[in-house]
């Protein structure tokens, strides 16, 4: 074998090994997550998780969000549009995956707002003002308070609640479930227990449409 052939064959073997490894790993990972979701819906939905829509809705979307993640907010209004277009058919469950620095505190504040029945208005208020309190991928919880004014929240109680061990436990549970379900980036969606085949708004809509049509 001459040098050029030797080199070409080696390069081809390496490239092939990488591709085969990638395919095998993705397949194994997909099976693993599917098995978990099948075996138990527990890691997907917990009692403490805020939900929107009717519990009897045939389609359940579980979304893992990071309050400081911009992409999450790009998806949110479109998910709501989809819900509005199919009244009573879709339920949204929000889980926290606060991967950004400082995000866990903002998640705790939102969980505390949930205690006062104001999770969704608080979420939308923070979403609209994300630029102000989350710059350079760092969430600054001390800057969120002005944006929560006027929602009728008892901020004093909220600040006390967000430091409670119960809420810390909820966030820890969300993070643990995210780990089990292999959520490494946000937003991540599970539609009736099924994860996105590839990331993007199109695949999400397809998954929702399939579930709406009972093809899941």
């Amino acid at each position: 074998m001459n040098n050029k052939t030797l080199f070409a064959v080696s390069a081809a073997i390496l490239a092939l090994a990488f591709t085969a490894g990638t395919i095998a790993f993705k397949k194994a990972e997909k099976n693993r997550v599917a098995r978990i979701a099948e075996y138990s819906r527990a890691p997907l939905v917990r009692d403490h998780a805020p939900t929107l829509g009717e519990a009897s809705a045939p389609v359940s979307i579980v979304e893992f969000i990071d309050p400081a993640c911009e992409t999450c907010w790009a998806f949110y209004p479109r998910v709501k549009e989809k819900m509005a277009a199919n009244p009573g058919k879709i339920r949204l469950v929000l889980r926290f995956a606060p991967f950004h620095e400082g995000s866990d505190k903002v998640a705790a504040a939102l969980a505390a707002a949930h205690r006062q029945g104001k999770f969704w208005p608080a979420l939308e208020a923070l979403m609209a003002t994300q630029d102000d309190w989350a710059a350079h991928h760092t969430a600054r919880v001390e800057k969120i308070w002005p944006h929560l004014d006027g929602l009728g929240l008892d901020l004093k109680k909220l600040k006390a609640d967000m430091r409670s061990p119960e809420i810390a436990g909820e966030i820890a549970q969300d993070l643990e479930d995210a780990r089990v379900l292999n959520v490494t980036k946000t937003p991540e969606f599970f539609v009736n227990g099924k994860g996105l085949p590839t990331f993007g708004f199109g695949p999400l809509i397809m998954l929702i449409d399939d579930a709406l049509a009972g093809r899941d």
Partner: protein
Amino acid sequence: MMAGSPRVQEDSTTWRLIFGAWVIAASATLGALFFGEVMKLPPCSLCWYQRIFMFPLALILPIGLFPLDRKVVRYALPLAVIGGLFAAFHLLLIAGVIPESIKPCSRGVPCSEKVIEWFGFVTIPLLSAAASASIITLLALAGLRRSNEQ
């Protein structure tokens, strides 16, 4: 120069040494990309420095193979040595020889965290150190042949 002359044999041994170094560098590069891009393990900062010195080797060594340019050792060896030093430092950090206080990275992914431990002892920095050490050895051998000749 006739085929089979000592010079040609010398050349083909040097070529194989550099080729061997490339196989290791390319495997290490693909392996690092597999950990990062496929398994989605975020690289810690020391891992980034090891990548910085490993990835160019996968490119620079084959350039020196076609046609054989022995000078490639001169350009590649410093990269391998510096990368190897980072890997050695990383190993000492994981082993706990280097104390917490001088850890260069505490934010993000801590470098002292073992994300992979195969057979109870194979960690990513160990793979990196082994790759660097083999590349250094092969390139040094190739370099020595050259200086003996002069």
